[in-house]
């Protein structure tokens, strides 16, 4: 398709990025001072981009809806960040990280982007340590690593279960330094309501001051969207309550293509839903699968007895337990990639072996008792205790497990009131991350010139499934090490442009349409709250566009979402007014966009007649129930162009070429 030029540089894959950087256009320091850049979102991608661009000398305006940039949802990432440092000497390399990521993504990502990601991964760790990020260290004072799902090396750097927090605080502190210098103007509690396109280029945004309710016009020479993913289209997800698609959706409606919306990651280890009053789901780090063993009862009657509360999991003998991941995937066992683990859990629960307390019994066990005994024996040996009793071993092992996962166990206990040292945790998959997003080229530019998308907001690096500890890597790679180079190539044309005026008719029109939407919500006086519609949308998404999809369900979903959307625009009720903090109004605008995205999402899933990564079509599976790709017909990125209605979006295909990796059936057996 001629409209999609990925702009991947020529040359061998290992040299593409270096050569490209050497030949890219630069903006000299004096000229940078007269160039403005808007960054929307202050998570790992947005925060690191804002800081780096300001360090380079650009005038940055950064926006976040939270009360501080430090609260972006990157902060909740627990497990770690991958980097091809090979500190453990276990054979890791840039190529291997590249290979694992492409394979983990089920061969649906762009090779050149992923290679670049693997290449800069090592720099990220260096940069973060220099910033004072307190990664875990061993007794020699050197950095420690752990292993994550879908790989066979230890390349994950971590800071207990708070890696995302520590990395985000690193980026936030870099931002703070620039805020103090006046190089970043920070707009907290501001939400981007629309992008402004002037003469075909992104030249600014309309933002709403969430405290005063005022609409503000902000202009710039380029607009960077780092607003995260759209998992909240499912209502219940592990995303923050405020996480939304609006910034990405607004640029989509103004010309940015939206790629692979159906690629959604359902994370296998989340705390199961407790009931209808639930507002969000909580993730338990994937790192738990390093030591925890996942199982369900081998006999249906045991599962029933457990659900009825007549039997405890600890009462079940070893032979009555079905460690189904170890059984089905002996070589990766409990460490299979997320999509595989999630589907396997759903398969067991659907077959009636689930142990959850809700109607459908949605939960499986994550058990640490063998890890506790294994570590206990090791500790006993280290301490020279030769005839340790079982209780002593258990005590020693509990201490080791506590040191490794203490905060996660504590979190679990706080939420469920169950002690995971004594009884296995209950987990179930939940929506966690969206691999799909705004289509970008090698420069991370969308199909709107001057408008960039970085981090989870774009689609580029994870294909159809993301490996654990790769989201942090991508966010920081985009913000610290990719965008600051590639954006210069575009801005080099703008050194003589001068400040962009905000009184043009484009700004006026954009502001007017936002104002009309706000007025509509306030004056509509319908009979249902925003959440009423959001919950209904979420239910349709989860049941028909969730972990397993089929043609009939998807077609129904498209119709149902359309209906909900029509009803929403008739019957939504937003109390209060638009001249101050009005959280219902904020939600209404976000849900309006989710109601459009949901439909495109289902449409994309319908068109992709294969199973790959997080996208599982029941019609396309092997006899053993594994996902079946169709490389002949679907080795492409589906990039959707907005044409006025989500279901009528126009499909553009970017063919994916694999020159350095052979397309294989993904196997973790």
């Amino acid at each position, binding site marked *: 398709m001629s409209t999609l030029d990925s702009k991947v540089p020529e040359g061998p894959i290992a040299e593409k990025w270096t050569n490209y950087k050497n030949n890219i256009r630069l903006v000299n320091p004096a000229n940078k001072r007269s160039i403005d850049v808007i960054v929307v979102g202050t998570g790992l991608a947005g925060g690191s981009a804002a*800081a*780096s661009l300001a*360090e380079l000398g650009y005038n940055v305006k950064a926006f976040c809806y*939270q*009360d*501080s*940039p*430090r*609260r972006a949802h990157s*902060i*909740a990432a627990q497990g770690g960040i991958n980097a091809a440092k090979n500190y453990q000497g276990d054979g890791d390399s840039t190529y291997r990280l590249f290979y694992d990521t492409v394979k983990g993504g089920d061969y649906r990502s762009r090779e050149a982007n992923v290679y670049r990601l693997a290449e800069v991964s090592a720099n990220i*760790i*260096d*940069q*973060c*340590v*220099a*910033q*004072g*990020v*307190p990664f875990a*260290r061993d007794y*020699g*004072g050197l*950095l420690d690593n752990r292993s994550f799902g879908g790989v066979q090396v230890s390349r994950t750097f971590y*800071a207990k279960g*708070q890696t995302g*927090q*520590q990395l985000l605080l690193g980026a*936030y*502190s870099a931002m*703070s*330094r620039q*805020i*103090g210098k006046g190089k970043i103007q920070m707009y*907290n509690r501001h939400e981007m309501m629309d992008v402004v396109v002037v003469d075909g280029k992104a030249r600014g945004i309309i933002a709403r001051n969430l405290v005063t309710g005022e609409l503000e016009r902000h202009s710039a020479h380029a607009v960077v969207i780092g607003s995260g993913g759209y998992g909240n289209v499912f209502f219940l997800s*592990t995303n*923050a*309550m*405020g996480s939304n698609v609006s910034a990405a959706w607004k640029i989509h409606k103004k010309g940015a293509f939206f790629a692979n919306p159906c690629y959604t990651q359902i994370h296998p280890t989340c705390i199961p839903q*407790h*009931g209808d*009053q*639930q*507002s969000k789901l*909580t*993730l338990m780090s994937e790192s738990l699968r390093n030591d925890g063993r996942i199982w369900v009862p081998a006999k249906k009657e045991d599962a029933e007895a457990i659900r009825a509360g007549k039997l405890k999991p600890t009462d079940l003998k070893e032979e009555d337990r079905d460690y189904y991941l170890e059984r089905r995937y002996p070589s990766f066992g409990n460490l299979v990639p997320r999509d595989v683990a999630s589907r396997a859990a759903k398969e067991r629960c659907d077959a009636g072996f689930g142990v959850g307390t809700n109607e459908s019994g949605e939960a499986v066990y994550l058990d640490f008792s063998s890890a506790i005994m294994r570590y206990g024996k090791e500790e006993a040996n280290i301490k020279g205790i030769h005839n340790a009793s079982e209780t002593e071993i258990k005590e020693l092992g509990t201490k080791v497990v506590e040191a490794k996962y203490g905060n996660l166990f*504590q979190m679990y206990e*706080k939420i469920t009131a169950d002690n995971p040292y004594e009884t296995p945790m209950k987990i179930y998959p939940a929506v966690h991350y969206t691999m799909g997003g705004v289509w970008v080229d090698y420069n991370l530019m969308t199909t709107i010139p001057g408008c960039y998308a970085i981090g989870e907001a774009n689609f580029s690096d994870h294909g159809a499934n993301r490996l654990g500890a790769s989201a942090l890597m991508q966010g920081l790679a985009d913000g610290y*090490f990719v965008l*600051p180079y590639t954006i210069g190539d575009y801005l080099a044309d703008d050194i003589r442009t001068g400040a962009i005026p905000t009184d043009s008719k484009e700004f006026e029109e954009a502001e007017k349409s936002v104002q009309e939407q706000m007025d509509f919500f306030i004056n509509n006086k319908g009979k249902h*709250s925003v*959440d009423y519609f959001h919950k209904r949308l979420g239910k349709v998404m989860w049941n028909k566009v969730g972990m397993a999809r089929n043609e009939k369900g998807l077609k129904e979903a498209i119709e149902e979402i359309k209906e909900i959307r029509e009803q929403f625009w008739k019957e939504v*009720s937003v*109390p*209060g007014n638009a001249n*101050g*903090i*009005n959280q*219902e109004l904020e939600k209404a605008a976000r849900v309006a966009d989710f109601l459009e995205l949901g439909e495109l999402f289902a449409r994309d899933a319908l068109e992709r007649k294969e199973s790959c990564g997080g996208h599982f079509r029941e019609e396309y599976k092997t006899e053993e129930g594994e996902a079946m790709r169709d490389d002949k017909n679907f080795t492409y990125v589906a990039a959707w162009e907005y044409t006025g209605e989500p279901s009528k979006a126009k499909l553009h295909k970017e063919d994916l070429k694999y020159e350095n990796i052979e397309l294989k059936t993904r196997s973790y057996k």
Partner: protein
Amino acid sequence: MSATEGLNLTLKVWRQKSDKEKGKMETYQVSGISPDSSFLEMMDILNEQLIAEDKEPVAFDHDCREGICGSCSMFINGEAHGPGEMITTCQLHMREFKDGETIYIEPWRAKAFPVIKDLVVDRSSFDRIMASGGFVSVNTSGNTQDANAIPIDKHDADKAFDAATCIGCGACVATCKNASAMLFVSAKVSQLALLPQGKVEAKERVQNMVKQMDEEGFGNCTNTGACEVECPKGISLENIARMNREYLKSSIS
């Protein structure tokens, strides 16, 4: 109202239209609250109820709802983040309350945290303190030295990490009888003072951050230790001692 399944509660909630208007405590009833619900889910139910009655819902800050973003900020029954140790409001569950109980819900109170609506306060003073020195002055380059070039004593690295877990929620300020921000500031000062990367500019950092803290109108520390108890991340008072030491050292050298 007949007793429904779940908890029936009386809520006394601070309502204030904006920073310019005066506020007052209002009383609401909620019923049928599942003990497994989180405190904020209970607030959601209250808000749905208010919307159905065509009243304005209670504004409150919240986002991640898993205890890490630091947005939620409620003073519940006289305690920051309510009863229970090492938790944020979003991690507080309704099983901690008894059927029929009256619960007081107030915003953080401090001159440096003005209320902007209902339970929402402005904590940008924390951001300004961070901008005054809560960083290591290193540019993004990709050419910094290898991450393992300087080994760091595990003990120091662990202490730095413990200090770094601060989520900037402001519970320390809210609970301190003096509305002092020393636990927050000292956590950042400590984290960076303990690491070789941060030591280089430790002197300027502590001076600048303390100066900014004072300018924001926070009170002084009188070592009651309330902040440490109410801190959802258990940040230790040891950090305040370290900051005092760093400050004195930088003042005389």
